[in-house]
Structures are given as structure tokens and as C-alpha cells.
């Protein structure tokens, strides 16, 4: 019997030991990466909508203010998706026979709601409130990205807890003057750090301690 294993097995066995360890770690890292990838978060994924509504056109080109449609954004937890009526305000006269607007007109006729596909989907147990962010100088684009350049809206941020925390831990980075909140093209000035600090005190932003309490977002 003597030699059971061939010369090569020495290398093979050692190699496999190391590669096993390597692969396990690789798998773990992979898992964590997938968890943060658009596959899980739907970040940057554009969705087909029943009506190919273009924010680029309405906001970017026509310059319609966010609040014209998203009426709740300053007062309520939710910005609100506009009722068909809002579309018809204009489209009863503009493009009022464009075929691609048929679903709108049909909805208005039949009193059947349009089924928009949801783009921004927070965890079921997160209680996000638009109004307080808007009122405290957090701009739309800080979370939603440059909507005015999106033909079809996609989710610009991961919307994961660590992402929320990044801002709740140091809000100053995102604070802007109130009149800039709805400005999609606002970019942080060079001295954002100090401006942010100033605004933070001006707006009476709560301490990081308070902003990172569980019950701030979870109930």
C-alpha cells in the first residue's frame, strides 16, 4: 500500500484549506454587499408607470412647484400623491386628447383611481414625517435626488437605516435655508459646515441623542 496520496495532494490539501477560509469570508462580505445593493434597496431603479409621468418635464421644464401636487408635504407626515383631479386641472385643456393621457381621463371619467407604482418604499415599521423635515430645512433633493432631471422617478437613496442615521447623527450637513428647501438644484456651499451649524441652532434641531432614539422613527 505504502503511499496513498499522490505528490500533488500536498498542494491541493493546503490550497483547499486556505481557499475554504477565503471563500467563507468572501461569502460573508458578498452577503453584506447584496444587502446594500440596489437589488435589495431598489435604489436607482426606474419603474414603469401606468402613465409615463415625467418630473423632468413638469418640474424641470415647466417649473411647477412640488407643493402643487404634493400638497401634504409641509403639513402632514406624507407628501401625498395628487388626485386625478390635479392632473385634469391642466390636462383638461392641455394635450386633452393625447393618447398617452387616456388613463388619466379614463380615471376621471370612471372615478377609478390610477394605480401608480410605488417608488420610495420605507420599512413597514418606520414612521417618516415629511412635514418636520421640510420645516426644519431639509430639502426634497437631499433624499429624493434631482427630481427635476428624472424623466421617470427613481429612488435616489438607499433608504436604509444607516442612511437615515448618517443624517440624524449630523444634520448640519443637510440643512439649508428654508427658501431653498424646494430648490432641486441646490448644492451645499463650500462653508456648509458652518452654515449648517448656524441653521441647526436657528431651527432648534434636536440633539443627535434625541434624533437617534429608536422612538424617533419606530413606534
Amino acid at each position: 500500500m505504502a503511499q496513498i496520496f499522490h505528490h500533488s495532494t500536498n498542494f491541493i490539501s493546503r490550497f483547499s484549506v486556505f481557499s475554504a477560509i477565503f471563500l467563507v469570508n468572501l461569502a460573508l462580505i458578498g452577503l453584506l454587499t447584496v444587502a446594500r445593493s440596489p437589488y435589495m434597496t431598489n435604489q436607482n431603479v426606474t419603474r414603469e408607470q401606468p402613465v409615463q409621468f415625467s418630473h423632468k418635464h413638469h418640474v424641470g421644464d415647466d417649473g411647477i412647484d412640488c407643493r402643487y401636487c404634493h400638497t401634504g408635504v409641509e403639513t402632514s407626515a406624507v407628501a401625498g400623491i395628487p388626485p386625478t383631479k390635479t392632473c385634469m386641472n391642466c390636462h383638461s385643456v392641455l394635450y386633452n386628447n393625447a393618447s398617452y393621457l387616456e388613463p388619466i381621463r379614463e380615471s376621471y371619467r370612471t372615478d377609478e383611481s390610477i394605480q401608480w407604482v410605488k417608488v420610495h418604499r420605507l420599512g413597514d415599521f418606520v414612521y417618516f414625517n415629511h412635514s418636520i423635515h421640510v420645516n426644519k430645512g431639509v430639502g426634497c433633493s437631499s433624499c429624493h435626488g434631482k427630481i427635476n432631471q428624472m424623466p421617470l422617478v427613481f429612488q435616489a437613496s438607499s433608504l436604509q437605516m444607516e442612511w437615515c442615521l448618517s443624517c440624524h447623527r449630523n444634520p448640519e450637513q443637510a440643512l439649508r435655508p428654508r427658501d431653498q428647501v424646494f430648490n432641486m438644484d441646490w448644492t451645499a456651499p463650500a462653508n456648509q459646515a458652518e452654515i449648517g451649524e448656524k441653521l441647526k441652532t436657528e431651527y432648534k434641531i434636536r440633539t443627535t441623542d434625541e434624533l437617534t432614539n429608536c422612538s424617533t422613527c419606530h413606534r
Partner: protein
Amino acid sequence: MSAEQRPRDSPQIRRLAPVIEPGHTYASVTDKISAIVLTRPASLGWYAGFAIGFSLLGVLTISLAWLIIKGVGIWGINAPIGWGFAIVNFVWWIGIGHAGTLISAILFLLNQKWRTSINRFAEAMTLFAVACAGVFPLIHTGRPWMAFYMFPYPSTMGIWPQFRSPLIWDVFAVSTYGTVSLLFWYVGLIPDLATLRDRATSKPRQIIYGMLSMGWRGSARHWHRYQSAYLLLAGLATPLVLSVHSVISFDFSVSIVPGWHTTIFPPYFVAGAIYSGFAMVLTIAIPLRKFYDLEEFITMRHLENMAQVMLATGLIVAYGYFFEFFMALYSNNKFDVFLVQQRLHGPYAPYYFALILCNILTPQLLWFQKMRTNVAVLFVMSIVVNVGMWLERFVIVVISLTRDFVPSAWGRYSPTFWDWSTFLGTIGLFITLIFLFVRVLPAISIAEMRELVTHTSEEHE
């Protein structure tokens, strides 16, 4: 002089009883032990035992599936008794595990030669017990599929486990304990695997054992490092084994529940663990040496020593019981006082007295040599102690919870069918693993037996 002439009962000679019957050579021990794995066909008894274990294992699978589907509500737990059989069994199994490490590590450090013939399967027992124990912390949670929250990984929530919680300590203690025991056991196995490789007749076996032995060739240089590694492992496993059950006891002593919140717990849990562990070793060793006639290797001396250890640890446990009472009364904390009274004449008093009977009264028989050397008695005794130690955990975990601070919330606990099936299921897992183990791996460390042979032969020279 030779075995048959020696009068077995005269004390001072008995004390010299060997840890291995004389007349053995390197070859003979090797043959005898490796034969069990390599040549001897599996007996009918083995198949029978395995069948029992395996069917119980099936019960476990079903119980777990049903648990996952329905939720922990299928068990008897409720408010206020949030922990029931699951935790009782967890602590019980972990406790059993301890004897293995203890025998292989501490006795090794103390250079107790008699450990050699029992440490291998004692270690195996440890691993399997830990496996059984490991089932519970996971499944007893309300959402097992979320249990990974307990591990410190960089989650997308940017939040970490809560390291002040004894349960997190458990996670680390138990997993470390499992890993180290496995390493220790495997390192011990390497030379024997080499032996099996060299004695195996069929190619597949040669390859399997060959792979497992990693090409061990008994080089003196290897032995040199091997020994220091093994010694270090023993040195590390010793504090580990003590820490693990201390940590388990923290689950209770760190809380504020009357009957849990006691400083005596760590030492008394460790003692209890060793106590039940040795009981279990006996429960396994006695049939093992019988069926595979290993009486020459696992001699009366082993059984007796273990019996003595049981007696000693049993007394420590008794001391623990006593002090639970004493401290409660001495501290005059109304909640503790009330609780210890409840133990004596509460709704669960029978369990408490049963526990005293099993753990304190019965083992007193071990003061007598006759009893210590009577295999049948030892076997029964070991079972009794196992039951007793299970009861102890039941008394501590469950009964303390039934009577805590606010009387309006007092309740009672009674296990359901699924509590029992899960418990029996883990016993099935244990049996199955043990039976597989004796078939595929040497139940006694051959290499160390050879050392023993040299020593004994030297003694005889």
C-alpha cells in the same frame, strides 16, 4: 502478579488497581481499539440503539418544524413564566458537556493517567451535548429567523448587539466552547486517524482517514510541537469550561428575579455541571465497556474515580442548595425569603423534594466502596443524578418565575406535548451522534493508551 490472582476487594491493593490491565502491548491495544471501527461488524444491539436514537431525532425535526410554523406558543410558557423547558434543557445539556472538557483538560493538567481511556468519548460527549444544547437558544426565540441579530455584523441598521445582556455572553461562551472542544478533540484524534489510515484495508477508508489525519507520520518534530499545543489547549480549556457555566449562570444571577439573583450561582452551577457531566460519562461508559468488552481499558478504577468526583461535586451542589436558603433568610429580602419558602411548600414543592432526593440523598451511597465498585448501582445512580440535575434546572428556571414581585401576576407552568417532544428529540440527537461516533472513530485514544502501556510496562520492569 497477574489480574486473576489479585483479590479485588482488599482496599490497599484496590487503590493500586491499574488504569489498564497488564499484559498489553502497543500492538494489542491498537488492535483491540481500532478493531471496533475497522473490522468488527456492527452488532444487532448497535442497530437497535441507533434506530431508537434516530427515530427520536425524527421527533425533534417534526417538533421544530411545527414550532417554526406556529410559534413558541405551542409550548407551556406564558406570562410570567417566559422561560420553560427550552432553557431548562439548554442548561442541562451544557452542564453535561462539561465533564468531557474537564476530564480531558483538567485531569490532563493534573497528569491523571486514568483519564486516558475515557477522555476521548468524554470529549465526544461534550461536543454532542453542546450540539444538543445549541439547538435551544436559537429555537426558543420568538423569531428564530431573526436570531442573527445576536451576532455582531455590520448591519444596514448600523446597530450592534447589546453586550450587557447575558444572552450575548452566552452566544460567545457557547460558540467558543463548541469550537475549542472541537479543536481539542480533533487534535487528540489526529494520531489515531493516522493509525486507522495505516490499518484500514479498503481504499476509501484509507483516503478518508488519510485526509482527516492530514498526513500525520509521527515525526518526533511534530510530536514536539503537538505536545506543547495539546498542553496549551488543555490549559486554555480549563478556565473556559469554568467560565462557560459561570456565564450560563449569569443568565439568571444577573437578572433581578427572586431565586435567580444570587451570587452563589457561578460556582454552584459549575459544580452542578461537572456533577451531571460525570453522571452522563458513567451512563455512557458502563454500557460501552460492556458491549465492546473494553473492561481492561475502562477499569473499575475509572468508574470508582468518577464516582468519587460525583460524590465531591454532589456535596458542593448540596452546599449550594443550602446557601440559597441561608442567604435568602440571612439577607431577609422579603421576596427571596418568600421564594425559598415557596420551594418548600408552594405548588411545586414535590419537584423540589424530588430534586433533593436525586441530587443530595441518593449520591450519599457513594461513601461506601461497595457501592462505588458495583457497576449496576453506579449505572442507576448516574441516571438518577441526571434526572436530579434536570429537576434542579427546572426548579431554578421555572419555579422562580412563578412567584416574583407582583402577586397579581403570579402564574404557573405546565409543559405541553411539544415541550416533551422537543426535549426527547434532543436526547435522540445525542444518542444518534454517540452511536455513529463509536462506529467510525476510536472511542479510546490509542496513542495515549500506547503511552500508558509504556508506563505500565516500565512499572512492571
